[in-house]
């Protein structure tokens, strides 16, 4: 069935932008094939073991600890990225200096680098004998094989999301609006807090959501630096892999379902917040 048949009412009205039926149809088909179909098998698989089995696998102490760690670390990392990602975007947009393009390219490296490579490199640096770890460990701040190490890995993979979503919005911010604030007597701080920050807040929220979602599902870079101790430094994606290696496919699927639900709910809430914020200011 085509989307046009599903949406007869939208068809009848003449629109200045034709093609809704066709493009929406293709979009739905595409999203179904690429996203929804694979994800639905996860639900089907986990349903095979019934409610009791499901909760035994997905609701165990060990799984609970893993969810807390995955989402908690992703949240902290996204917060850190919010601050420093904004700073990097600010520098890239506002100032012109030699090496600016190079710095811009460096920001994208976490996108391109195999995450395992990043994980191994970070572990090397932050372990007790590593370049940074050997300085921090004697101060009572061990990073590697601790939740802190997981946060660092997630900061690494999430940084480009914040920088790349905030950058274009910051670029479009009119200079006149800032100058208006200044001529009205505002200090730099007031201009930033009252004028610039509210204007880029939706972009910041988007960057935060993306970095958070990416961090919650991240596997490759984290497993090297985490230490992977059950209950303490074992992330949820790793727990899924562990179940798979023990041929407990429904159990793995059950944990995946819980992660999906949590992620989806959080992204929905963040989106709703943004819509609300935009309505208020439109």
């Amino acid at each position, binding site marked *: 069935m085509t989307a046009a048949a599903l949406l007869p009412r939208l068809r009848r009205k003449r629109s200045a932008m034709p093609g809704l039926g066709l493009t929406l149809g293709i979009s739905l088909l595409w999203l179904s094939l690429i996203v929804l179909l694979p994800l639905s098998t996860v639900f089907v698989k986990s349903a095979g073991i019934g409610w009791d089995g499901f909760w035994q696998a997905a609701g165990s102490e060990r799984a609970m600890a893993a969810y807390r760690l995955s989402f908690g670390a992703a949240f902290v990392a996204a917060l850190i990225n919010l601050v420093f990602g904004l700073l990097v975007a600010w520098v890239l947009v506002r100032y012109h200096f030699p090496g600016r393009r190079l710095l811009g390219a460096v920001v994208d490296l976490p996108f391109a680098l195999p995450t395992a490579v990043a994980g191994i490199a970070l572990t090397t640096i932050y372990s007790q004998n590593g370049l940074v770890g050997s300085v921090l460990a004697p101060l009572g701040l061990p990073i590697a094989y601790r939740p802190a190490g997981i946060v660092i890995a997630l900061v690494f993979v999430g940084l480009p999301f914040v920088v790349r979503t905030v950058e274009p919005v910051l670029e479009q911010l*009119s200079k*006149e*609006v800032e*100058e*208006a*604030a*200044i*001529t*009205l*007597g*505002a*200090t730099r701080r*007031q201009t930033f807090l*009252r*004028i610039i920050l*509210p*204007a880029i807040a939706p972009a910041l929220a988007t960057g935060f959501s993306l970095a958070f979602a990416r961090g919650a599902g991240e596997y490759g870079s984290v497993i090297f630096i985490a230490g992977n101790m059950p209950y303490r430094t074992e992330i949820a994606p790793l727990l899924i892999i562990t179940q798979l290696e023990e041929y407990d496919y429904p159990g793995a699927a059950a944990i995946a379902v819980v992660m999906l639900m949590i992620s989806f709910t959080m992204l929905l809430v963040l989106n709703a917040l943004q819509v609300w914020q935009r309505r*208020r*200011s*439109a």
Partner: protein
Amino acid sequence: MSIRVEEVSKRFSTYPALAGVSLEIVDGEFVALLGPSGSGKTTLLRIIAGLDFPDSGVIRFGDRDVTDDPAAKRGIGFVFQHYALFGHMSVARNIAFGLDILPRRARPARAEIEARVDELLKLVQLEGYGERYPAQLSGGQRQRVALARALARNPRFLLLDEPFGALDTKVRRELRDALRIIHDEIGLTSIFVTHDHEEAFALADRVAILNAGRIEQFAAPAEILERPASPFVTSFVA
């Protein structure tokens, strides 16, 4: 208060935007800076406002040398061509912005600020629009809000950069008349930039005609029409 511009020069990378401009504007006067694009009129206005700084020369407000004072400290009101309203704030908060950001000691009480906002809304004939957002207003209404906002802190000078440039003819004329009335009512010294000589002559007490970073003539409209000081002035006002 009077404004004195003494031998001000400014270069942008290679070409000179202003080449030794001097100008004296008396208290309460309404002056137009008129010239083709690239003549340096906007640069001159921005230097007076403190949004740009001259390479050489002095700006005086009264007897005080304000050349190095930042814009925030000059006690000016500035109106931008594209309104530059704060999109995330209501009309009332836009107008109150200059008062809301004052340090606690200097800030008027909440009720006083709201009274001031109402007074300004009335002045620009936008009573009852306080709770709207800039996106819900027409171009002419937005520029009225920008004007009210610029006046909120009782500036000594009102500086306007092509204030009618983005508006259609009818709205332009209405706003022009409104501006003249407001100027006469408050009696503050005002300078506006325009490239439209009819507008300049209709509105200003005196008009400074700029060309290539120099002032060709600074006189009352009638005198410019009777005795143009240079062939450029003759052709520009023709």
